[in-house]
């Protein structure tokens, strides 16, 4: 078979790279996003076909078989996964990508004498292995295979430092000597680093870890592109590295914390401070019928969904309630905090699945000035993201976190399971304010009762 000449190969890879950029650009708006993703998938297909016709390859039947196996495993899982399990799946796909990059780098070691290529190999090995193992631990935490609480033990920082130093040492020797045995040691050290990095991170901080590991895999892929001299891998990996970096920073900003503070916070033991005691102060609790009257005779209602809603599988009921209220001529929006859910933007996906149109899904920055005009803010399964302590109490663990300004609404209704504080374990003063009404119970049950009562008005 004659092979494609290098110019055509380069042009086809360039086209694939452009497709990837268009895929990310499509995500500017929900209208163009799906088409963008299809363009990206086309680019990937183009690149894979190009490699088959441009490089002299042995073992083609084996390679095709491996591709069939990989697709055969991943596609059905991707098709069936529940939207609440999306963070696990993304962590899993991210991990296997990092693992693949590390393996490619390992096998390329014997093909090069160039020191700078070996630098890229060492980087890919280490970062790919960190991403693989870190994503594995993240998956285990999210899937409930292990505790979601931060796992720490005395000497963890010391162990981490020793492992990192050993990795740097092994890396330098690999660069100088090209030793395969030490490259394997480096791979193992990378795996250990990944595990140690994610173990101390608590459940609420997982969104940050997922996006950080995503950036890591991107960088590993970019470095493997340098190893193979493949421009497409460089561009694609760098794009992903950039997106992971931006998301990580956005998430950290939305939590009012630094990335370093989140990754290493548990080392200092300060990340779960706060009281878990149940307060005895009086609150105004109410019935579903009273809440329905509040909602049904309002002009503007803003629903603030938290992860508690998704845990109770109440998204569809919330969407139905919004529809029932809109049928009464009430303006209804959903106010989405950036960290609502278990990964960046997760809550939007959960509500989109429940057929809430994307025009009703409002970002925090857009909706915060509108709470003043809202008659009722309905907070379902959210707590810390509406807690004014983030603005007023400088000693609070969530101090500095941007919140949804539900206190500006004329009435605030909380659907809560109990008076127990939220994930961060901080008392919410808003619960005791005169404009606040509480309806206790499971989020879905409460919403179902309120929905029934609204329909009966």
């Amino acid at each position, binding site marked *: 078979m004659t092979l494609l000449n290098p110019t055509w190969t380069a042009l086809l890879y360039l086209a694939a790279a452009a497709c990837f950029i268009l895929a990310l650009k499509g995500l500017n708006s929900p209208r163009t996003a799906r088409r963008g993703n299809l363009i990206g998938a086309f680019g990937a297909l183009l690149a894979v076909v190009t490699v088959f016709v441009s490089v002299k*390859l042995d073992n083609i039947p084996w390679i095709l078989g491996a591709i069939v196996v990989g697709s055969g495993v991943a596609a059905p899982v991707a098709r069936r996964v529940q939207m609440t399990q999306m963070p696990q799946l*993304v962590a899993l796909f*991210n991990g296997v990508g990092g693992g693949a990059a590390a393996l490619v780098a390992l096998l390329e070691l014997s093909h090069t004498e160039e020191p700078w290529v070996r630098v890229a190999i060492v980087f890919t090995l280490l970062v790919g292995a960190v991403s693989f193992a870190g994503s594995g631990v993240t998956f285990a935490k999210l899937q409930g295979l292990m505790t979601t609480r931060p796992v720490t033990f005395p000497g963890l920082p010391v162990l981490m430092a020793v492992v990192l130093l050993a990795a740097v040492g092994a890396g330098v020797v690999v660069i100088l000597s090209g030793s395969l045995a030490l490259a394997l040691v480096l791979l193992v050290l990378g795996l250990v680093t990944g595990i140690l990095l994610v173990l101390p991170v608590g459940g609420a901080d997982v969104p940050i870890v997922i996006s950080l590991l995503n950036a890591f895999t991107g960088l590993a892929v970019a470095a493997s*592109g340098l*190893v193979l001299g493949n421009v497409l891998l460089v561009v694609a990996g760098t794009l992903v590295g950039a997106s992971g970096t931006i*998301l990580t920073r956005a998430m950290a900003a939305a939590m009012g914390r630094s990335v370093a503070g989140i990754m290493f916070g548990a080392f200092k033991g300060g990340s779960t401070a706060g009281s878990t005691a149940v307060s005895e102060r009086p609150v105004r609790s109410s019935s579903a019928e009273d809440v329905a009257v509040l909602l049904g005779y309002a002009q503007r209602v803003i629903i603030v969904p938290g992860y508690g809603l998704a845990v109770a599988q109440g998204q569809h009921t919330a969407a139905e309630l919004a529809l029932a209220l809109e049928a009464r001529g009430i303006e209804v929006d959903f106010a989405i905090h*950036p960290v609502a859910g278990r990964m960046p933007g997760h809550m939007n996906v959960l509500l989109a699945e429940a057929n809430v149109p994307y025009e009703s899904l409002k970002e925090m920055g857009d909706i915060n000035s509108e709470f003043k005009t809202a008659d009722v803010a309905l907070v379902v399964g959210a707590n810390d993201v509406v807690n004014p302590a983030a603005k007023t109490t400088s000693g609070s663990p969530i101090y500095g976190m941007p919140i949804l300004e539900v206190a500006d609404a004329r009435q605030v209704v909380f659907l809560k399971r109990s008076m127990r504080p939220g994930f961060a374990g901080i008392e919410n003063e808003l619960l005791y304010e005169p404009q606040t009404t509480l309806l206790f119970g499971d989020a879905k049950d409460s919403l179902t009762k309120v929905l029934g009562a609204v329909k009966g008005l």
Partner: protein
Amino acid sequence: MDGMSLLTITVLAVFVGFEVVSKVSSTLHTPLMSGANAIHGIILVGAIIVAGQAADPLVLAVALLAVVLATANLVGGFVVTDRMLEMFRGRQRPPSNVAPTDSGAAGTAEAAVRERRP
């Protein structure tokens, strides 16, 4: 390709990446992450090259493992992103031949005809 050109491309790609991604709406951050995730599955290209040049059975086995992992990343990533984006639907415009019938606010008719999937 020589090292300098690759470095140039890398640096430019960093700027393109930041530029494009910083415009993504935060509503779509989850699809962004899974879409970006799918894109780094293109390491499949590297895995295929390595597998295609493997002479030793052990090397081939490791390379094929990389192919399986990378394919899972690439295919699974694009499929799941498509599934998510399919769910993001806008408000359906009311068809022009159906006028709002009875009393009610302007939003009523629009809400009533909004497409609902079972």
